[in-house]
Structures are given as structure tokens and as C-alpha cells.
């Protein structure tokens, strides 16, 4: 029982090659078995040390360093700084990066910046439908940018071309208006130009546009009854 208690201390003492403590020394005086174990452990450790030292302190062949020197003489000198090739490669990479990033940055800016020098005015043909018709005023420049920036259009909040919503009962009149205005660029410019420019536009000689006739709402009997019912129901 006592031997088991001292076993670890005994192995530690042999491994560390240190002096034995007083308690362990007293135990060893009276225990032949532990004394033999300690002796065996010390022999094992000294054998390990001898083998390790013999191996680790082995010397290379005398020609070893001469061989290394020969190999070193075949090596190019260690690099001390950056070569011109590195600088040129770095500059080229930087240019390529800028060329790649610039269109991305440009595409994020608002797309409608063009002047409306030669706008073309078109109107939707679905006049008879129940949905509001709309006319799209397209600028050729805007169209070309639209093609260029097709990838980024989905993310853009600002529409590429302005839309004019027309109530169903005014669709016919609006279509007539558009038909008359078509081809008259100066008038179109006056219509679509910002408010500040309109003052100036008013001062110039605008082309005379004949009045636009808006016909009375033609309703048949059934529609009129329906209209009356709805008006009565809402009161």
C-alpha cells in the first residue's frame, strides 16, 4: 500500500534526475522492491539520454558544408527589393481593377440626365381597355443607356422613362392630342421641359396648336342606368 503511494514520486524523481525527498528516502531505506524499481527507472532514463545524445549530437560528413556552399553558389542572390517587373505588373493590375470598378460605380448614379432635344412621343394603343393607358416619352439617349445598364435596371428606383397615366374616359382625347403633337419637336419640348424652362419656352414663338376637341361622354342606355344607380347608391 505504501509502495503505491510512493510510486508516482519515485517515477518523477527518476525522470527529473532530481534529489529524493526525505519521506521517499525513508521509505526506500525499508523497501527493497521500491529501491530496485528506482534503480531500474534510473537506468532506463540514462539509457534513453545516452541514445538520444548519441543520435542528436551526430556530426555530418566533413564535406557537408562544402556541398552546401556549392549548392548556394548555384542559387541566385536573395531578393533585396522589388524588381521593375513587379512594379509594372502592379500598375497593370491596378488599371484593370479601376476599369472593372468604374462601370459599376457609374451604373449606380441616376440614369436620366439627358436633355430632351429630340424626344419622340408614343402612345399606347390599348385605348378601349379598362386599364389606364399610358404614354411613354422616350429619349434616344435614355434608350441607349437603358441597353447599356440592363443588368442594373432591376435594382434602380428611378424609372428610365416617365409615364403619363390617362384616365379611361380621357384616353381618346389624349390619343388625338398625341397624334397632333407627333413630329412637332418644339411643342414636345415645351410640354416635357421642367418648370423653370417653361417660362422661357412661353416667351418664344410656340407653334399654334388647334384646339383639341374632347367629345361628350357617349353612354348607351344600360351604362347610363348603371351610372345613375351608382350615383344614387352612394348618396
Amino acid at each position, binding site marked *: 500500500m505504501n509502495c503505491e503511494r510512493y510510486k508516482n514520486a519515485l*517515477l*518523477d524523481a*527518476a*525522470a*527529473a534526475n532530481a534529489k529524493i525527498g526525505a519521506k521517499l528516502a525513508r521509505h526506500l531505506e525499508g523497501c527493497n522492491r521500491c529501491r530496485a524499481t528506482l534503480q531500474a*527507472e534510473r537506468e*532506463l*532514463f540514462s*539509457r*534513453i*539520454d545516452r*541514445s*538520444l*545524445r548519441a*543520435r*542528436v*549530437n*551526430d*556530426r*555530418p*560528413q566533413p564535406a*557537408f*558544408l562544402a*556541398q*552546401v*556552399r556549392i*549548392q*548556394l553558389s548555384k*542559387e541566385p*542572390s*536573395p*531578393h*533585396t*527589393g522589388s524588381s*521593375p*517587373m513587379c512594379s509594372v505588373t502592379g500598375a497593370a493590375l491596378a488599371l484593370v481593377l479601376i476599369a472593372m470598378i468604374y462601370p459599376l460605380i457609374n451604373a449606380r448614379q441616376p440614369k436620366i440626365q439627358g436633355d430632351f432635344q429630340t424626344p419622340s412621343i408614343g402612345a399606347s394603343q390599348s385605348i378601349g381597355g379598362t386599364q389606364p393607358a399610358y404614354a411613354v416619352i422616350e429619349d434616344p439617349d435614355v434608350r441607349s443607356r437603358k441597353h447599356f445598364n440592363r443588368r442594373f435596371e432591376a435594382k434602380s428606383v428611378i424609372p428610365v422613362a416617365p409615364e403619363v397615366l390617362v384616365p379611361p374616359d380621357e384616353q381618346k382625347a389624349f390619343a388625338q392630342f398625341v397624334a397632333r403633337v407627333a413630329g412637332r419637336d418644339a411643342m414636345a419640348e415645351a410640354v416635357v421641359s421642367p418648370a423653370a424652362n417653361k417660362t422661357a419656352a412661353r416667351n418664344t414663338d410656340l407653334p399654334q396648336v388647334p384646339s383639341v376637341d374632347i367629345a361628350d361622354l357617349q353612354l348607351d342606355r344600360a351604362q347610363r342606368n348603371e351610372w345613375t344607380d351608382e350615383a344614387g347608391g352612394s348618396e
Partner: protein
Amino acid sequence: MQEFTWPARSTETELALDLEKAALRREFEQRLEACGTLAFRVARGVLHNAADAEDIAQESLLRAYRRFARLRDPSRFRAWLVRISFRLALDHARSVRRREQRETVWAVNVPKPTAEDVAASNEFARRLHEAMASLPKKLRLVLLLANMDGHSLEEVAEVLQLPLGTVKSRLHSARKQLAEKLR
């Protein structure tokens, strides 16, 4: 078509670069004298064969030379070289072990051991080599350096950039684990 040529360096720049390279080479050769054997011994501690250890030491020294200009603190050269040789020796030992396993599995006639192998195949040395190979790397490196001539524990701590207490405890643990495997 005109051929592109690099802008020529001035003679002063060329001269300064050449001088710098020559100084680096001289400095490395001085260190080679002092540390060449160290690289061999570290490799020998890991490898069974002295010839392999020489090859690995040579490779370590060449690698150190190629990157010598990048070494910021020249006083750390010894530690740097020890690490390079230890890592290369471990890689080599691993590849040798794999090759031996392949050959054991596939070879019809296992080659007979040479006279050198017979001499080296002392039972205890073989068992010690195996026990060393199974030690964790950090314990093994401390054990190797501590057993090298002229390496006090303080120097080992300095080379490995470890506290002295850590080196002592690692050495103690390595020795106990070795004895456990050899008992």
C-alpha cells in the same frame, strides 16, 4: 516595330544593389559556419538515417538562404533555421513511413536489410525511434534541443521563444512519456 526595353537603372543603383546582395551572401555564409551542424542535428533527431538528415539539412539551409533577405530580426536566425529543418524532417519522415507502408503491402520480395541497417537496428534504438515519433511535436522538439551539446535549457527557451518553466515541464513530460513507451 520597336522592341520594348526596361528603363535602365542608374549605375549607382546597380552598384548599391550588388553591394547589398554581396553583404547578404557574406552574412549568410558566416551563419552557415555556425548553424550548418545545428540544421543537421535537428534533422538527425527526427530521421533514422544520417544521409537523409544531411539532405534535409541542406534543403533547409537553401530555403533559409532564399528567404534570408526577408528575415527581419537576424538574431532569430537560429530559431528560424531550427523550425525549417524540423518541419522538413517531419515531412520527410512522414513520406518515408508512407512509402514503407506501400512497399510492405505491395512488394512480393521484401528487400533484405543492408549491413548498415543491421548495425543500426539495435532493438533499443528502434524502439526509441518509434517512441520519439509518437511524441507530440512540441515535446519532441524540446527533447531534441535539450539533448544537443551546448544547449542549456535557457538557450532552448530562447530559441523556441518559450518561458523557461514551459521548457522544463515539456522536457519532463517528454521523458516520462518516452519511458512509459520503452518500459
